């Protein structure tokens, strides 16, 4: 058995439409080990959320996973029967969504929902014990007076507190892996940083692995250790956080980093990637980034593969940016 907790190989997820199947995710491979925080970054339509849902086995009609392996503890989740997968979800793997109301039932009290999450996976736990575990979980994610808050309904919480509740629910059964899909995007910076701090602590103390899906590179910088950059359904670059942010290889990653306002050039024009991401049913031939790429050449019409250029480092580009080119050298805070 490998040291990786989760290993996804060659994942492909397609959605059926009027004009046949279109692939939302193509040839995505990723690994996560125990206690590791991995970032999955991309813009809307890049396939990052579909990747997360595919791992969870939550792709519904008209979508389906058509290729690849999703190995958790060396066991392929795609081959598991539905009941076994259901036993894993919310127990060994959990997911946190951008909108907490996707997780919470608006007409049930928090304690009802939390206790159910425990007893659904372990019928032997009695209510008092389950309740105590729920109260502790709420305390850990920083909800004041958890005992009273257990009796509240979701609408009695603020947005930030609701998101904490869903994190507490995800943590309840001490899962091995949590997939978080933009959980702080709708929150204020102060609340966001509180939640990021909680997540960091939880992963450090419990050894929970975390896949953080976001479009926000600054959150990735603050939270993660390793990054996968997705564009138009595929991983275009992967590497350790510092390598990707300081020495990006793919022109798309480079553009994305440069287009974020930074503190050193206020009022200057931002770097901009021309055009926009292609729609899923009209993907360009060859490299999918080539119509927007400043480094495009003739051979970019041939599809590039994700080539490793070192341990923990790979890029999907015929003409990657030279490794020695540092972006923020000497500027690090």
């Amino acid at each position: 058995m490998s040291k990786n907790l989760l290993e996804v190989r060659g994942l492909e997820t397609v959605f059926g439409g009027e004009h046949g199947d279109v692939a939302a995710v193509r040839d995505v491979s990723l690994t996560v080990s125990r206690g590791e925080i991995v970032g999955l970054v991309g813009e809307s339509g890049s396939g990052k959320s579909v990747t997360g849902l595919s791992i969870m086995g939550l792709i519904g009609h008209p979508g389906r996973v058509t290729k690849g392996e999703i190995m958790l503890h060396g066991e392929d989740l795609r081959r598991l029967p539905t009941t076994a997968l259901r036993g894993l979800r919310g127990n060994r793997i959990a997911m946190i969504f951008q909108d907490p109301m996707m997780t919470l039932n608006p007409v049930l009290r928090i304690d009802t929902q939390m206790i159910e999450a425990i007893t659904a996976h372990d019928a032997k736990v009695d209510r008092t014990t389950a309740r105590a575990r729920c109260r502790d979980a709420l305390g850990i994610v920083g909800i004041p007076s958890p005992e009273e808050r257990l009796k509240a309904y979701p609408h009695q919480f603020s947005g930030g507190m609701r998101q904490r509740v869903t994190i507490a629910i995800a943590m309840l059964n001490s899962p091995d892996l949590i997939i978080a899909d933009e959980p702080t995007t709708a929150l204020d910076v102060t609340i966001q940083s509180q939640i990021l701090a909680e997540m960091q602590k939880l992963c450090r103390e419990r050894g929970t692995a975390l896949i953080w899906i976001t479009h926000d590179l600054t959150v990735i910088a603050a939270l993660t250790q390793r990054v996968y950059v997705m564009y138009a359904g595929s991983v275009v670059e992967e590497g350790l956080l510092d390598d990707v942010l300081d020495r990006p290889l793919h022109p798309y990653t480079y553009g994305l980093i440069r287009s974020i306002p930074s503190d050193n050039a206020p009022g200057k024009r931002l770097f901009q990637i021309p055009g926009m991401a292609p729609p899923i049913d009209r993907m360009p031939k060859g490299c999918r980034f080539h119509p927007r790429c400043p480094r495009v050449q003739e051979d970019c019409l041939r599809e590039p593969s994700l080539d490793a250029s070192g341990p923990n480092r790979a890029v999907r580009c015929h003409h990657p940016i030279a490794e020695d080119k540092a972006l923020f050298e000497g500027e690090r805070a």
Partner: protein
Amino acid sequence: MSAEALAGRVQPVAERAGPIISIDNVTRRFERRPDFAAKLAMRLGATFNRRVVHAVDGVSFEIGTREVVGLVGESGCGKSTLGRIVAGIDSPTSGRILYRGEDVAGAPSEAQREFRLRVQMIFQDPLDSLNPRYRMGRAVSEAPRHHRIVPLSELEGHVDRILLKCGVDPSTKDRFPHQFSGGQRQRIGIARALAVNPELVVCDEAVASLDVSIQAQIINLFMDLREAFDLGYLFVSHDIGIVRHISDRLVVMYLGRVVELGPTQELFAKPNHPYTQALLKEVPTLKRRGASFCTIQGEIPSPLQPPSGCHFNPRCPFATKRCRSEVPELRQIAPGRFSACHLNDDTR
């Protein structure tokens, strides 16, 4: 009045001095009115809890010609309400909005009309603010036609010119809003605002719903248009990185009040108010790797029951007895810099 006469009356912006807009002690309260049952209960001697929200509470500042003012704060701090008041969509409960030194509320209708044209607004979601049944060309040309911004014969050219400046292909004027991408729709929203030659554009979270690469394009567009049309902006946003990039001056709001105001770069270099200090520390940037956050404790309190004294005192690490009882005034602490904190008195 003929179109030519109106066009002649409108002076080039650069020749006018002074602030475009002065916000003078503006307060906006939202109140729950007693419904029928409550009125009945009151007749019978019950007390009714009025539940007044001070969304904006005694705010004053100015926006100069071609100036970009950033307005930041957490959700519920009243920044959007203030933006809407500046744009003339909402009116203050008390206080005045001065356009070029004249009170807008008491002005003759002609002056009010000019104010409404000269201050335009761009919204977060352009799909919500564009009529889905209007073709794009009509959405952009309707206001300049109605207000005779240009003679009717030149309208087409005027609209095309604005669209081109905003990066929209004029040949797509026959399309409906849903046929454009998010970034294109925001460009159309901007073009529509610019079609009546405004001096000030209020942008309420105008780039918040866009992807990073598109966001950069729109921010660049904002900066180009500022040069091209001598525009000022009131940039309302929760994204401090973007506000820092684009603003000349920054206004920080907390629970309806301005807590700090000053030139953006100075304010970032040396924030004065404990709230600003904490807020700026929370902003994630590309350079802060694996940061362990030193978070502001707790959440923004409910505006229905704001804390007494300084609104920030329950979350402030330096709060004293005085902060809990006395409201701090917004006072000048350095040329052009203002802060509302009692701590500034102690150091003197």
